[in-house]
């Protein structure tokens, strides 16, 4: 196997983990919850005991992953027609087992937006699963219902789907397990009384990694290669040169990843993410770029790549967008800043233009008096405006209005009240930026004349 192939294998495997298409190698910090959820499902399958539970936790803490992992393990144990909706790899497992002891129905509150749709989807998934066996139709197959975004199901009219599911689970007519996943901590309160009373009130919580080391472990796991990723057969029979190069590559790659985590700058980037949000996905997002850059020429992850992509994901995109504003738009923003500083929080175009005009009048007067045109950096081509004294010029209202509208379009300004009729010059607006952000833009702006910068810095 050439290095190129190995790199492309590694890339595929890692990006699949980053995109959460394949499951992580190990569960970190969720062992307890995992055991409980797995036990619950197993009891349903083995002993036909109906059950219901909720898994609550903030986004990105591994609720869905937990359930997927549990299902995968059950599937390995019992065999199922559970055609993985996730298209993940069924590594060395032989899935052609005829025996299957349970069925799984996946629902997501975002997709099945009402009960009718949900029922249809249940039918579809059950009939598809039913088709593939066809054998003894009398047997009672346990069904596991996974309700992702559980809180959205609670918003369906009358909550009849939930009512019926919980009712079946409670009345022990048919062995089912209902597992709800939600990021709303108050999801239980959303249930109607009759629904709530049928729920088992079992809930498990997932939390973001509390400890920096756990966080690092999760991150590291995503980047480390495993033998399966590189298709290294564990059979002793298959040992060949291919095998050896692959193994060497894996060792080297993993070594590099480990040194990466010891790198000072890199840890700073990770620490920052951890301190800000403890979200594993934020780290994953950071990794996509560097992983995508892996190639034959640079087959290993380098810390410098992460600095760059860390910076890229961190920049305040608003300031970035503002860098592209024209001088006129910038002037209008500064005028707005001055208005806001005078506690005129909602304003219309006329007011802004008036403020802008005041400044320009002043600037032109001062410009002609001190003849400081040189400080305004009139380029060789810019001399056309020399009739005005400076390359700054007072724009006509129509042009300024266009610029103002551009700011509205970029949603830096928002209408203060809901749609109001009347000429658009007079519609009241609010600004969606801080005064500090505006000053920041002025500082970073590529070619902002000193007069304008001074105007921006002035208070009141």
């Amino acid at each position, binding site marked *: 196997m050439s290095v190129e192939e190995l790199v492309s294998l590694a890339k595929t495997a890692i990006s699949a983990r980053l995109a959460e298409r394949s499951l992580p190698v190990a569960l970190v910090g969720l062992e307890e919850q995992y055991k409980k959820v797995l036990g619950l499902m197993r009891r349903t399958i083995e002993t036909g005991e109906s059950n219901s539970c909720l898994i609550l936790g903030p986004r990105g803490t591994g609720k869905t992953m937990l359930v997927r992992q549990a299902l995968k393990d059950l599937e390995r144990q019992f065999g199922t027609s559970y055609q993985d909706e996730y298209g993940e790899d069924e590594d060395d497992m032989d899935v052609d087992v005829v025996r299957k002891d349970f069925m799984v129905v996946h629902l997501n509150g975002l997709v099945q937006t009402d009960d009718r749709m949900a029922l249809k989807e249940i039918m579809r998934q059950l009939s598809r699963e039913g088709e593939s066996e066809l054998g003894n139709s009398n047997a009672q197959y346990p069904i596991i219902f996974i309700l992702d975004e559980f809180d959205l199901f609670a918003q369906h009219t009358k909550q009849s789907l939930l009512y019926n599911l919980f009712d079946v689970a409670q009345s022990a007519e048919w062995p089912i397990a209902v597992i709800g996943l939600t990021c709303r901590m108050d999801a239980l309160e959303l249930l109607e009384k009759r629904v709530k009373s049928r729920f088992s009130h079992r809930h498990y919580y997932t939390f973001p990694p509390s400890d920096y080391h756990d966080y690092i472990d999760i991150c590291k796991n995503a980047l480390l290669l495993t033998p399966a990723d590189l298709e290294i057969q564990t059979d002793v029979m298959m040992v060949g040169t291919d095998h050896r190069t692959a193994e060497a590559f894996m060792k080297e790659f993993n070594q590099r990843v480990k040194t990466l985590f010891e790198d000072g700058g890199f840890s700073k980037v990770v620490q920052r993410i951890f301190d800000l949000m403890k979200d594993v996905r934020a780290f994953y997002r950071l990794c*996509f770029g560097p992983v995508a850059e892996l190639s034959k020429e640079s087959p290993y992850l380098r810390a410098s790549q992460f600095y760059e992509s860390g910076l890229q994901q961190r920049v305040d995109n608003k300031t970035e967008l503002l860098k592209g504003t024209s001088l006129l738009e910038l002037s209008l923003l500064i005028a707005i800043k001055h*208005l806001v500083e005078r506690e005129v929080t909602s304003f219309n175009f006329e007011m802004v233009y008036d403020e802008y005009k005041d400044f320009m009048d002043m600037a032109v007067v001062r410009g002609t008096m001190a003849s400081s045109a040189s400080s305004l950096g009139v380029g060789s081509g810019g001399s056309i405006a020399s009739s005005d004294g400076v390359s700054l010029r007072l724009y006509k209202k129509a042009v300024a209005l266009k610029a103002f509208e551009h700011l509205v379009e970029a949603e830096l300004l928002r209408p203060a009240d809901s749609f109001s009729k009347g*000429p658009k010059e007079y519609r009241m607006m609010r600004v969606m930026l801080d005064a500090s952000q505006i000053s920041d833009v002025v500082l970073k702006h590529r070619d902002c004349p000193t007069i304008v910068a001074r105007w921006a810095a002035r208070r009141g």
Partner: protein
Amino acid sequence: MATSPLQLLHEAFPGRAKQIDQILGFMGKPWAATPPSLLINGNSSLGKTAVLKATLSAMLGGGSDSGSSSTHIQSEQQLQELRRRLPSRYAFLDCVECHTPRLIFEHAIYQLRNPPPSQDKGSIIFPSTHTPTAGMSEKKEATTVSRKRKRMTTSPLDWNRCENVNDFVEWCRKICDTKDELDEFHETHGNHRVVSGSISKHQNETRYLVLDRAERLRDTAPTLISVLMRLQELTGRNICVVLITTIVWEKFRSKTGGYEPIVLNFPQYTKSETVAILRKDLPAEEEEDLDLYMRFVDLVYDVFQRNCKDLNEIRHLVALLFPLYIKPVKEGKIQKHEGLKLHRHIQAYFVEAMDKLYLREISSTEWSDRTLSTASGSLSGGSGSTGGGAGGHVSAAPGGDRALTTALDVQNVFDLPYYTKFILIASFLASYNPPRLDMRYFAKVSSTGSKMTKRSKVAAAKKHGHDSMGSKLRQQLLGPKPFPIERMLAIFYSILDEEVEENVNVHTQIASLVSLRMLQRVTPMDKLDSIKCKCNVSYEMIKTLAKSTRFEIDKYLYDFS
């Protein structure tokens, strides 16, 4: 190889090499796992749509028929051929066009089930793809639509109904699961050895769903965004959603949160990049003027770049002004190398264009027609005195001015009956003056002495208004206030010197002003008593009206500047 698709792309988009590489990096091999979602943001006219479209079509749409096909290895050629024939790997939707979820779903399904839009050879070249979003692209869209229609009737795959997210997710799975010759091709050929292993049994090629102007999605269906962000997870297939937008991601976040996309920012073009793009705009037949053109582009950039960041606007300006710039050269009046003279000649037009920046009051063809015709007249007079420098400058300007202002004059020419003008003036006064001052302004006092005091009072009020912090809250800036019609009539009778007897006619005039939208009725139509109106007319227009009736409006306005 001199003409690999990648190099072609880099050449077609100056200054976007890094972004193209990034996008390609995220795409990876056709079957590789991609990030679930990407968000491309940047100001308008930075080539977001064009770059993505060209990249996708070059990589997944069978590319362009580059002349280099002979240098391609045979399997490569075969691949291209397949790509052109088989269902497209990407769907490119504009959220303005697809303004309901259903339209998005159905268009996406349709595009993903049919071959990619055929690419003619020229399409990869910059000017045709990098169209201004408003103007030319519409025409192009129209043609694609008609092409779509045609295909719809001929192709066996017809339009599929898809009304909700549930169906859409199901469709996505179905589409991604259909294995076609392309996927088999990968498997049979060496380059896909990897996937034919055990990694995944039905890992077909990645599908891309691109949504242009995605900011519209928020109005379309708020929950749709979070669905799209995790479409990969929901379908469990290789599908990547790309949003293109001019606003920042923060504005998309929903209350409950959700999966966050990877943000890719398109930065502003630098000067050299802008010039390189403009270089491509020079029509082929004027290739011999390249030197002159580049000098001109440089000039335009230096003059306009501070105030005009929009690349399309600069291109528009260049296209408009270049003919004017080289006209004297073509006529033999100025030699090519006389840069200073040429510069002076074009200056007047620059000043004018600066005033009209972004406005596009008249279409560009109209503009060039008019300016060329008028300029030839005025220039012949002006060029004689170019030696005098300033003289040439001044005389050239009015010619152009005339051409441009004609469009504006429509507003001023607009004529109304005599009394109606006064009604409009009266309502303007009623809208902008505080009622408490009506007594002072409009009470019939004849003595000149009192007039003096009135004036001084107004001046004092003005001064006061400017000193206070709240000078920004004066009525002129706040806009028109509603007024009862009776008050306006009182003002009307007061400012009109003669007697008007027919009250009925006045009311018809008011009604016609309302229907002209110069007055705006704020009370509901079914309420006949105590009607209130607002004056919708600008100060400039009222001033011209007042001038035409010889009415000194400034004397009667409170706190205006």
